[in-house]
């Protein structure tokens, strides 16, 4: 059930109604029922994967906790002290670690099998061909269970947090199931932490009109981004991406920027809808974006884009890797070759590149995404190395503190992000590299006017809508920089509030790309 469907809106309306009609103590159960129904709508058999994750994580976290509590009891009963206590604790931690490893193995194993089997087969086939082998392995035709990439991350985050003793394990498996399957976030995030989400997820929320309105406002803005902008620019993205031979030169730039706009509208719009849905039930989902295109560097961009995911990778991949014994050993080895100072950076380099590798492959099972991730990682490390140079430059030249220079930095970051995204945009990394060449050397602006623009698949009116949407995003971003735009609108007069929200509603209703579209030719009777 897609967010942008009549079915979803009807489903949501029914569940909001049932949620507030039932007594408070049943409300989280309504959310669970809704989430399971939503999940079942994507295919009955896929729920098995979700249940395996839930049951395994629930059982293993309780097991880890039992080891911890039983050990504590034993230490108390036997009056252990000093070295004995330390050794016993280490033994307990080791046992807990085995349980953790089992949890990681089961859940990462499921994700790896269902998401990456075809990628593995493709690579094996390439190697077979390379070595002159004939024939190849056939691909499997498994559909990916809904939200598996997201709920697996949430489940592993929860498992690791319980292992590290950040909070207690949940004793009710159904509550854990709700945390993993909460329907507004299961499709595309944000990736929530259990301790944060549970504060509002299981709370007995009373009906609060203003909160409901705010939820609807947030959803409306999400629908605008998704239906009016992302889905409108989609034909351009598809046309340029799928016809690199015909649409080269200046169209590479058009496709690149169109893809950035589509991704922004689609993803941030989807998250707005998810957060708005959460607000309808009084559940606060974490923010996932903080005006990403106001970033002046790639590092800042990644602190503002898909924040919950980046935080997850930072917390559960980067930091543990950077501080791991293996990386430490490599650092020590590096000291012999590069000296102590240079080698001290090695853990960060290694952890960073591995984290970006996983970030890339998490986004998609293809080399496009792996390369996209690695290029991001390399640029970030290079920027970090060049930071002293930047600082010197900024000190030496006064203009680097002017608004114009800051706008230039923002634009530069936007172009950099868009350019790197070409690796995921074009069908293969090689095509992307070839199109970089086109972008750099074959502009040929005249092609915009030779009729080939018709291949982009949008009308002048569509282009006008897109053209007007960008300044609107900038305006909203500028207000958001100072305060929540909804609070800003709330302070305006009733008439202005009405005009803003009704205008946005009309924009979605009329300009939104949904339904079957209208083609006059279809109405001409021609059943000859």
């Amino acid at each position: 059930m897609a967010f942008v469907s009549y079915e979803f809106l009807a489903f949501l309306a029914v569940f909001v109604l049932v949620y507030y009609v039932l007594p408070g103590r049943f409300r989280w159960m309504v959310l669970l029922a809704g989430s399971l129904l939503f999940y079942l709508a994507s295919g009955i058999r896929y729920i098995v994967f979700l249940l395996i994750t839930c049951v395994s994580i629930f059982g293993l976290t309780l097991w880890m906790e039992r080891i911890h509590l039983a050990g504590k009891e034993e230490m108390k009963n036997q009056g252990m002290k000093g070295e004995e206590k330390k050794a016993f604790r280490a033994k307990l931690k080791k046992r807990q670690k085995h349980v953790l490893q089992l949890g990681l193995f089961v859940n990462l194993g499921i994700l790896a099998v269902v998401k990456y089997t075809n990628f593995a087969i493709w690579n094996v086939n390439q190697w077979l061909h390379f070595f002159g082998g004939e024939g190849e392995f056939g691909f499997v035709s498994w559909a990916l269970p809904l939200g598996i990439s997201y709920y697996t991350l949430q489940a592993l985050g929860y498992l690791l947090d319980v292992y590290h003793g950040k909070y207690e394990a949940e004793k009710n498996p159904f509550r854990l199931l709700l945390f993993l399957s909460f329907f507004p976030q299961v499709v595309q995030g944000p990736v929530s932490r259990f301790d944060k989400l549970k504060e509002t997820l299981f709370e007995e929320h009373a009906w609060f009109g203003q909160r409901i309105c705010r939820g609807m406002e947030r959803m409306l803005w999400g629908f605008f981004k998704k239906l009016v902008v992302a889905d409108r620019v989609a034909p351009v993205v598809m046309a340029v991406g799928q016809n690199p031979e015909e649409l080269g030169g200046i169209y590479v730039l058009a496709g690149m920027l169109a893809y950035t706009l589509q991704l922004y509208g689609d993803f941030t719009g989807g998250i707005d809808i998810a957060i708005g849905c959460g607000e309808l039930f009084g559940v606060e989902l974490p923010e996932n974006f903080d005006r990403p295109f106001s970033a002046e560097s790639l590092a800042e961009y990644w602190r503002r884009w898909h924040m919950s995911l980046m935080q997850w990778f930072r917390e559960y991949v980067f930091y543990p890797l950077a501080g791991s014994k293996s990386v430490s050993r490599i650092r020590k080895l590096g000291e012999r070759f590069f000296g102590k100072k240079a080698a001290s950076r090695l853990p960060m380099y290694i952890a960073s590149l591995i984290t970006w590798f996983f970030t890339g492959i998490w986004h998609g099972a293809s080399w496009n995404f792996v390369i996209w991730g690695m290029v991001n990682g390399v640029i970030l490390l290079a920027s970090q190395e060049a930071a002293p140079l930047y600082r010197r430059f900024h000190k030496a030249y006064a203009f680097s503190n002017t608004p114009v220079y800051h706008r230039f930095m923002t634009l530069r970051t936007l172009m950099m992000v868009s350019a790197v995204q070409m690796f995921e945009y074009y069908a293969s990394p090689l095509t992307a590299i070839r199109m970089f060449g086109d972008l750099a050397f074959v502009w040929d602006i005249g092609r915009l006017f030779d009729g080939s623009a018709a291949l982009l698949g949008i009308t002048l009116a569509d282009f006008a809508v897109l053209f007007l949407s960008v300044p609107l995003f900038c305006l909203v971003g500028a207000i958001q920089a100072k305060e929540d735009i909804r609070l800003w609108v709330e302070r305006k007069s009733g008439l202005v509030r009405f005009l803003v929200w009704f205008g946005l509603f009309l924009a979605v209703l009329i300009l939104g790309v949904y339904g079957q579209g209208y083609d006059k030719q279809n109405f001409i009777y021609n059943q000859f």
Partner: protein
Amino acid sequence: MKQKIRTIGLALTVIVVLVGLQRLLQPKYMGQVIEGAFIGEYYKETTPHDLLILGDCEVYENISPVALWEEFGITSYIRGSANQLPAQSYYLLEDTLRYETPRAVLFHVAAMKMEGQDREAYNRMTMEGMKWSSSKWNAICETKMEEEYMLEYIFPLLRYHSRWQELEADDFTYYWKRDIVSHNGYYMRCDVKPAEGFPAARRQASYHFPDSSWEYLNRMEALCREKGIDLILMKSPSQYPAWPEEYEAQIEEYAKEHNLLYINCLEKQEEIGLDFSKDTYNGGLHLNLYGAEKLARYLGGRLQEEIGLPDHRREEELQRVWEQKCGFYYEQQEKQEEELRTCGFLKQFQ
């Protein structure tokens, strides 16, 4: 109090804007495509009809109600549209019975072969014009295609929202009031495109009419029997080879079994006097005005003879109403013929 007035004011504004936009964006069917207006025009009728004609394009393009009136004094109305399914014909009959009870219903059997709709636009043109009733609701529920939503019939704005890019002068000209474009459901075409023959019909895997078609024909028959209406089955003349013997046999048997009059005009083309080098506007598939008048004359004679439909030409009220209809009919005919003389084609339909 002030707050209440403001809220009511805003709610009214929302409703007015949405209704206004919906009216603007819905197709008006006043230009090249006029068939979508036919079903709705029925509700503007002020006098009853003795004959209700139901079916697909082969009724609304092939029978002239004006000729039926002028020659036999039969009052008739065609409730037909493109690819109209038997289920839709049944619900249109049900809908019509809310307003009047005709003496006879003529159902065109060509659509019996259709299992479901193949183009959403045809469903729209058939059902959008119906007034809201349980008949319309059921018609939509039972014939809508997979990608269609009831919600989009209730709020057509959801269906036609993207027409903002294709608004034409007609959308503003006919914003408040639309013209009558049919002649009691008849689609007038005076142009001629002689028949040049069609390729032979392809063999089909099965020649059995789908269960849904039989179901609705049975329901039509039962409803007519209950209301004392004569149900007549008819197959229109055409050069297009779409009526194999197997179809014919099934309908013949059904008519015999239920004691219904079945008129297969395919076999009576000579008797009707059809000349497919002059009486068709699209190469022998459908009839033009001259062919439709010939077919009406043939059908009228048989219906009066075999069903006993009365001649109303001496009734003053009907005479007045039909005089107006005939005036409009001849005015349109003259307009089309004049255009054909000067341009060689009908601009409206190009």
